[in-house]
């Protein structure tokens, strides 16, 4: 359903990605593993449309979307450092994508409650973003990315920066959640063990 074909990205003199290709089937969870600096996050940004590749194309359901603006792709991205909107409550963060789709107030409220339950944050709706712990912030970021039901969810080192115990617990939660929602996902990580827990298939880059 998602195909990345022969992608090349250069930043000035440096070639970050060269002829990178990858395919994801519907509902599949794929992990991209490799050392830092190998272009994993760059690939995610190309798929999300935040970065225009110098060559190659991104194909979604048979359509070439390489030139489509980010906001028209419906591809979700969970950022490494969450990037929650600091001027909004937990609810408003999760509701953001739904508001962009002009959904009704009641539909949004229902979906937000559903997602808060899904990520195990019942009753956190009115919290301020800066009052969340590291693990809670990750859960909110995941809920926000899932809310508009993206065709593909991209996860950029989603569990980095957590202590070991919390990390392992969240990895299991995340794996279950992606299966339960049937989400097609592309996960970037430098942790092979984490990849094995969450993903159906692992692709190693930079060897």
């Amino acid at each position: 359903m998602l195909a990345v074909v022969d992608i090349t990205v250069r930043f000035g003199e440096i070639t970050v990605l060269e002829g990178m290709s990858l395919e994801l089937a519907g509902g599949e969870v794929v992990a991209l593993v490799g050392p830092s600096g190998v272009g994993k996050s760059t690939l995610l940004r190309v798929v999300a449309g935040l970065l225009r590749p110098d060559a190659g194309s991104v194909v979604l359901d048979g359509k070439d979307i390489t030139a489509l603006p980010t906001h028209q792709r419906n591809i979700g991205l969970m950022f490494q450092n969450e990037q929650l909107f600091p001027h909004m409550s937990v609810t408003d963060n999760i509701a953001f994508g739904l508001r962009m789709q002009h959904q009704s107030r009641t539909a949004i409220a229902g979906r937000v409650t559903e997602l808060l339950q899904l990520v195990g944050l019942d009753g956190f709706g009115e919290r301020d973003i800066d009052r969340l712990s590291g693990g809670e912030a990750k859960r909110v970021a995941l809920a926000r990315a899932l809310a508009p039901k993206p065709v593909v969810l991209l996860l950029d080192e989603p569990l980095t920066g957590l202590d070991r115990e919390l990390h392992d617990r969240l990895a299991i939660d995340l794996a279950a959640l992606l299966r339960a929602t049937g989400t097609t996902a592309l996960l970037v990580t430098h942790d092979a063990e984490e990849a094995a827990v969450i993903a159906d298939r692992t692709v190693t880059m930079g060897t």
Partner: protein
Amino acid sequence: MAGPVDRDRAALTRANALPRWLVPALAALPVVVLAGLYSWPLTTLLTRVIRPSSIGDALHLPGLAEVVWFTLWQSVVSTLLTLSIGFVPAYVLARYRFVGRRVLLAIVTVPFMLPTVVVGAAFLAVLPSSWHGTARAVVVAHVFFNVAVVVRLVGAMWAVLPTDLTAAARTLGASPAQVLRHVVLPLLRPSLWAAATVVFLFTFTSFGAVRLLGGPAHPTLEVEIVRRATQLGDVDGAAVLSMLQLLALAGVVWWSARAQRRGTHALGGSSHWRHARSRRESWSVFTVGAAIAIVMSVPLLVMASRSFRLGDRWTLAAWRKLGTAEVRPGVSLGVDPIASLLTSLRFAAVAAVIAALVGGLAALAIAAAGRRGALLDIGLMLPLGTSAVTVGLGLLITFDTAPFDWRGRWWLVPLGHALVAIPFVVRALLPVLRAIPSDQRAVAATLGASPTRAWLAIDVRRVLRPLVAASGLAAAISLGEFGATTILTRAGTETMPIAIARLLGRAGELPRAQGFALATILLVVTAVVIIIVVGAAEQEGLFDARSR
């Protein structure tokens, strides 16, 4: 319960601390200056005002409502226009990196620090004569002046807005316009408030530009205060108006401080410079950059060129006649341009020395006193919130009776300039002092320096170079100061801004061209001072200084 260990610990802390006499010794001169030249004059103004008869007389004068109304609406319109016009250059200069960016930033910033009289003269030169004496002209000059505030304050915040935050909004389906509305604008709000407040305060108390461009039909409160004090001899009325203005300003500052606190959020994540990647993006950046450069420099260039024109001829006559006060043999102009240049330079030097001395001592005292320094800190900021005309008026009516009858003394003018400049000097030095890690003095102590020696070797040493820059800033402020000077000036010691305003106010081609010539000289002198001294020191935080 304080045991012997606690007592020993306290004794050691004290022995490691700076001696108790140091802060009072440093603060003595700044406190005397503040009390004698600011608090006392202001109290004198207040006591003049408190008599009910004078309040009644002043408030019932015909035309006052119109003055207040014009002051208010022109500053609201100027502020809104400045915000919307400054927004695009703020974005481009904050987010993009391109060749000539620093030069462009300087081109935008310098007009903000130019004397108001020079900006007024530039717009007299560039605007068609049908615009002279109109509110439009005043507003246009105000926008030109204050765009720098938006570019610097809003740009500073925009530059640290995490790039991924807007990327996150886009992956959630927000179009560029929605990103701006729902993410960027709410996060920029504190800086928008700050910029709006600064611009509002400056335009509300604007004097030079209004005096030159607004004509007699458009007085602001500030202009009206001066008119009453110097032309009508109604000092009581002027005092009432200046207190009214002070009250309004205090209210605006309080309201805006509250609004800014509410909207402030901690931002995580890094922010990246952009290089224009596509050709269209490059063109957009280039277009904005070129537009800024042209709009910001053309009025000044036209002003300079007008000094070479008489009628429709190009001539050096205006420049050649600058040295003489006579138009024709026996007919005096009443102002001597070259003498005013020398007076201005002398006053600037005196004001810079006073401001550097008092401001430097005050900054050292505030930093050394730690939390207890807040009182002096706030006290020294007060003159900043007081319009220059009010400062001048206070000095004028306080020092008019023996043994303090200083009205005729030449140094009252540079003293007024210094008073206006001191807050800027303190603002420039404090961040430098506060950025010194306390461990630096601890290191000096472990190397055998006594607390006082360590303070001299580190704090005082560190502040010397910025102090040079700050005194340059004080000199620039003094060179352009117009409000306080108008009230305090005496025949024979006119400064350049006074001479320029008089020349431009006269009928006839020659005095006008001479006014433009003198304004060009003032422009060059001030720009050189700003660029060399302030620019070289590259002190962030100095930029919000300006001459009033």
